[in-house]
C-alpha cells in the first residue's frame, strides 16, 4: 500500500511496517524540545511529585525564548528555573537567550528528516519543514514524554497543499499561508497532517518552508510537512547536522489523501489579514490605505534571516513614515549576526528600526512589550487574536515582511509590489 510521508514517519516511530489513518499508535520520541514557559517551570514539579527522572537527557533540548528579556521577579524566576533544571537533569543541549526555539532547533542541527519530535509549543510544527514529524503539545503531555520517552498519536490523514509555478517578486510563504487560512479557516487542517508540495514549494528556501510549516498551526493542522530534498540537505549540512537520508521520506504516488488542494503560485497577490484572526484574509489591495501606528517584524513566523532580507529589499534607501514605530525582533542571534554581517541589519536600522531582543516578544504577549489601547499594528507574525499581543482594543493586521515594510514606509497598508515592482 502506498503511504503518505506522515504515515511513514509514524510507522517508523511506532516500530510498525505501516500504519493507517485513525489508528492509535504509541511513538518513541527521538527528541523533546521545550521552552522556558511550558518547560522546566511546569514539568520539574511533576517529575518531583512522581519521583521520575528524564528518560534520556541527551534527547532533550531546552531553549529559552518566552520570558526574555526577563523584566520582573516572576520572569527572572522562570528563566532561572530553566537554567537550574538543565543542570540537575543533565541536559546539555540548552540554548539560553539564543533565539526562538523553532528557529534555533534546526539552526543548531538538532532536526533531521525521519525523526519523531515532540515540542512544547503550538508552533512546533515549524520543524516539519525538514521532513520530521514534530508534534506540538502542552506541558503535562511534555512531562509524560520526559518521564517515559513515549507518546500516543492518532494517525492523521494527509491534506496535500500543492503550489505550482513561482511566487511573485514580493510574495512569500507568509502570503501563501495567510491565503490558506482565509481559504480553509482556523480548523481547516482538522488536526490532520498537512503536506506542502509542488514546484513553487521546491523552489523555496528552508526558512520559507519553515514559514509554511509554522502557520500550519493557524489552520489547526497537527503537523506541517515538506519532503526533504537537496535544499534540506544543504541547510542541515551547514547547520552541522551531518549527512541525511531523504530517500523514503516522501508521500508515495497513489496514497489515500484526506484532501488535495492545488494552487498556482504566480496568481497569488500579497495577502493581508484584518484584526481578529489570520483567516480574515484578502489581497493587500482590498485593505490598502488603512493607517498604521506600528510596523512589527518579529517571531518564528516572520523574523528569520530570510524575512529580514525581504524587509530590507523594500526598505533599501527608504525610511519608515514619520510617526510610525518600526520594531524588528530578529528570530535568532545567529540570524541577526548574519543579517549584520551582510548589511541587511544596517538597511533596517537606517529605515528607523528599533532592534529588539531575539525572543518571542510581542507575538507571545508574555513579555514587557505589549501593544497599547487602540494602537494599529501591521505585523509579520502568525496570530492576531483579540488581546493576544496587547490590549483587547489593539488592532493587529498580518502581512508578509515585504508588506509590513512597504506599509511602514507609507504609514498605511500598502502593496509591496508598488515599491519593488
Amino acid at each position, binding site marked *: 500500500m502506498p503511504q503518505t510521508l506522515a504515515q511513514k514517519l509514524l510507522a517508523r516511530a511506532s516500530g510498525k511496517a505501516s500504519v493507517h489513518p485513525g489508528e492509535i499508535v504509541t511513538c518513541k520520541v527521538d527528541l523533546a524540545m521545550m521552552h522556558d514557559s511550558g518547560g522546566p517551570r511546569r514539568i520539574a514539579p511533576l517529575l518531583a511529585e512522581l519521583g521520575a527522572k528524564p528518560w534520556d537527557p541527551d534527547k532533550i533540548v531546552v531553549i529559552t525564548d518566552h520570558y526574555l528579556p526577563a523584566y520582573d521577579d516572576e520572569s527572572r524566576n522562570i528563566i532561572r528555573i530553566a537554567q537550574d533544571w538543565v543542570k540537575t537533569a543533565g541536559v546539555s543541549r540548552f540554548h539560553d537567550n539564543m533565539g526562538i526555539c523553532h528557529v534555533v532547533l534546526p539552526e543548531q542541527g538538532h532536526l533531521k528528516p525521519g525523526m519523531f519530535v515532540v515540542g512544547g509549543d503550538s508552533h512546533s510544527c515549524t520543524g516539519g519543514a525538514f521532513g520530521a514529524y514534530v508534534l506540538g503539545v502542552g506541558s503535562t503531555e511534555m512531562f509524560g514524554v520526559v518521564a517515559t520517552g513515549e507518546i500516543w498519536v492518532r494517525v492523521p490523514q494527509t491534506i496535500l497543499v500543492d503550489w505550482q509555478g513561482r511566487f511573485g517578486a514580493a510574495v512569500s510563504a507568509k502570503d501563501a499561508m495567510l491565503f490558506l487560512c482565509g481559504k480553509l479557516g482556523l480548523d481547516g487542517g482538522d*488536526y490532520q497532517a498537512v503536506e506542502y508540495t509542488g514546484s513553487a514549494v521546491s523552489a523555496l528556501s528552508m526558512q520559507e518552508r519553515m514559514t509554511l510549516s509554522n502557520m500550519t498551526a493557524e489552520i489547526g493542522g497537527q503537523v506541517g510537512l515538506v519532503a526533504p530534498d537537496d535544499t534540506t540537505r544543504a541547510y542541515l549540512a551547514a547547520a552541522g547536522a551531518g549527512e541525511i537520508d531523504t530517500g523514503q521520506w516522501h508521500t508515495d504516488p497513489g496514497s489515500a489523501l484526506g484532501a488535495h488542494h492545488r494552487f498556482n503560485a504566480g496568481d497569488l497577490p500579497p495577502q493581508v489579514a484584518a484584526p481578529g484572526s489570520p483567516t480574515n484574509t484578502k489581497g493587500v489591495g482590498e485593505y490598502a490605505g488603512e493607517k498604521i501606528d506600528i510596523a512589527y517584524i518579529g517571531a518564528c513566523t516572520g523574523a528569520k534571516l530570510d524575512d529580514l532580507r525581504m524587509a530590507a529589499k523594500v526598505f533599501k534607501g527608504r525610511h519608515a513614515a514619520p510617526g510610525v514605530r518600526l520594531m524588528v525582533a530578529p528570530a535568532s542571534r545567529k540570524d541577526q549576526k548574519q543579517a549584520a554581517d551582510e548589511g541587511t541589519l544596517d538597511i533596517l536600522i537606517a529605515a528607523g528600526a528599533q532592534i529588539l531582543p531575539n525572543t518571542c516578544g510581542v507575538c507571545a504577549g508574555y513579555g514587557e512589550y505589549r501593544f497599547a489601547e487602540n494602537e494599529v499594528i501591521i505585523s509579520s507574525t502568525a496570530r492576531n487574536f483579540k488581546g493576544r499581543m496587547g490590549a483587547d482594543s489593539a488592532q493587529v493586521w498580518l502581512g508578509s515582511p515585504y508588506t509590513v515594510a512597504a506599509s511602514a514606509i507609507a504609514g498605511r497598508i500598502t502593496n509591496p509590489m508598488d515599491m519593488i515592482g
Partner: protein
Amino acid sequence: MTEDGKRNPRTWVYGDNVTTDSLAPGAFMKLGIAEIARHCLESVEPSFASTVARGDFVVGLRNFGAGSSREQAPEALRHLGVAAVLAQSYGGIFYRNAINLGLPVLVCADTARIKASDHLEVDPVAGKVRITNSGVVLDCEPIPPHLMAMLNDGGLVPHLKKRFAAQRSEACAGGSAT
C-alpha cells in the same frame, strides 16, 4: 435552585474558535493558575470568571481552544470548577491538554441546540447530554478507551503515578523472588 438549596449548574454558551489567548490571557501567564483563571474568557465575557461555579458547563461550536499549546487554557476552566466542555470540535492540542488535566471534553455535533438558559446533565462515559428543561438528549462521540482510562484516573499525572507504582511493585516482587 435545587431542593437542597444549591445553585443549579449554569451553562455558558460561546461560538466558534474560542481561543487559548482568551482562556488564558498572555499577560497573566507568568503567574499561578488562580490568577490566570481570574481572567479566563474576560475578553469574551468579562463576568465569566467571577460568576462561573463548580459544576457549570461550557459549550462551544467549532474549534474550541484554538491557538496555542498553553495548557493553562483548560487548567483555568478546571480551576474554576467547570465540569465539562461540550463542542463540535476542538483545537487538537487543547483537546489533549484537557484530557491530560482530567477535564472532560466532549465532541457533540449538536451543541448549536444548547442555550445559555438550558440545564444540562452530562454523562461522559455514555456520551450523552440531557437538556433537562426540554428533555432533549444529544449524543456525543465516545471518548477513546485509552483516554477514558486516563480521565478516570484524573488525568495523565495520576495515570502515570499508577503505572509507575505498578511497575515498582512488579520490580519489588521480582526482586524478592530471586
